[in-house]
């Protein structure tokens, strides 16, 4: 299968209650930024989730900045 290359920043989701906004953009290295009300208690799980999804996608080079924002309390 052809590998995908990330060309530009894209985002999905909203800041409505219980939702989150995920933004993916090209970067120097793999990075995860997770901000918002419950970010402390779910940081590890989120990192794992992002890794799993990223590893299962045919991405050409795993160098992206994943920014996840959760609504503030």
């Amino acid at each position, binding site marked *: 299968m052809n590998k995908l290359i990330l060309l530009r920043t894209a985002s999905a989701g909203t800041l409505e*209650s*219980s939702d989150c906004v995920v933004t993916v953009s090209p970067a120097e290295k793999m990075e995860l930024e997770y901000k918002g*009300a*419950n970010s*402390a*208690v*779910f*940081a*590890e*799980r989120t990192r794992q989730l992002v890794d799993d999804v990223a590893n299962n996608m045919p991405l050409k080079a795993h160098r992206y900045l994943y920014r996840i924002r*959760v*609504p503030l*309390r």
Partner: protein
Amino acid sequence: MDMSVNSLGRSVPMYLPGVGHFSPYTSPFAMLGKPAASAAPMQLRRPMPARSKVVADIEKAVELSGLKDGMTISFHHHLRNGDAVIPMVLGVLQKMGFKNLTFAPSSIPDAHDCIADYIRSGLITRLYTSGVRGELGKLLSAGEINIPVVIRSHGGRARAIEEGSISIDVAFLAAPACDCLGNITGHTGPSACGSLGYAITDSKYARYVVAITDNLVEYPLHPKISIPQHFVDSVVCIDSLGDPKKIATGAARITRNPVDLRIAKDSFRLMKASGIVEPGFSFQMGVGGASLAVAKYLEEYMKEKGICGSFGLGGVGGYMASMLEEGLFSTVFDVQSFDSAVTKSMTENPNHIEIDASWYANPFNAGCLVHNLDCVILAALEVDTDFNVNVLTGNDGVLRGASGGHQDTAAGAKLSIVVAPSFRGGVPSIKDKVTTVTTPGETVDAIVTERGICINPAREDLLASALKAGLPVADITELKKEVEKLTGIPHPAEYDYDKVVAVVEYRDGTLIDTVYGRK
């Protein structure tokens, strides 16, 4: 620090440096039914007769009070987030060069982040309060400031004052209406706040009382006097006690959130099934959200069946005041008024009675009102499978709440119902162990969530009634698992157990838990 493990398995200090010795919590009524201990002495004063106690400014009142470094000052929090008095007085004290004071307000309004600055500056080196929020909460929980902090319930604070554990040297009492000899009331004036319940207790036991007012009325204040002149030493007039819009807000409206309404409806159904809603029943409603919405269903039912209750109690908001007006309760006992509708009711309705904190909830007097309460609805930040409740710290371990009347009403009421959504912001509310125990599970009869009603196993009678009425009863451990399936299991916050940030007293003076600094 010497620690001991109390009956809930929580580690608490035996001795808090800068404060004194404590006993660990054993059970809700362990300290009651015994011969009386001695009370703190009340101050006798011998001033020369005078026709006015008005002094030029706060500085002058402070000089006259004999306040020295290391002494204890107190305030009430009836002006809520509209209060300008606490920052004003602390500012003056700082300028006058005071140090090492014990700051002992009845609670700290959210808005007063400045307290943190006065702690950093060394003005305040000991804190006694019912609650800590905002910047101050974050600061304390970060372990950045190392001062002893004791958190007490409203009843517990009254007890502590009456027994002398809190020895107030100077009480600075914001007085919405005051005359030149110090008769005070809270239900009239541009900064009217309704009941002065917490202030009344301070006025009786403080060594020196300063009334601060923006509304000096002609002598004598009438018809209502909440604090009589013989407890007041000086009167200071200032331009404004604060922001009236934030003091007496509009009445909290019943929530429209369908999840909260579901919780409220099921809570009411539990009340009904328990048989407690009968003529002569007494009730304390919550302040907002689901805990207030229960009142809507209760009101409908009481009207339909023509039931009149004996008394409403609280923490009184507009909804309770309107139920009084509709004749659904014979009386309302008010220790703190939340909005302008309540203040109006207090002024106009003789059955709306002002009470002080001791009358309300002190477990060490001849009989406080919470001990006669039939039913109370309480909120929670967290609960655990032993039915313990946390209203002090968030799931990140940061101080963000107040003990308030929680422990007192839960212990006293025949039916104590705690309401909480099963998760908030994706984080479950039901834990194996709450971060900080405020109210022990032994005093909690039921926890109502939108996904089920959990009944304390010790209440077999209540469980039987709930099942008979076909209510959605759930096992709390099963419910916890179910919620975790949806949200995942949150990673617990990490604490530095060498940093004791605050101790939490139970209403009888024993220690129920300790708050540690975040790592």
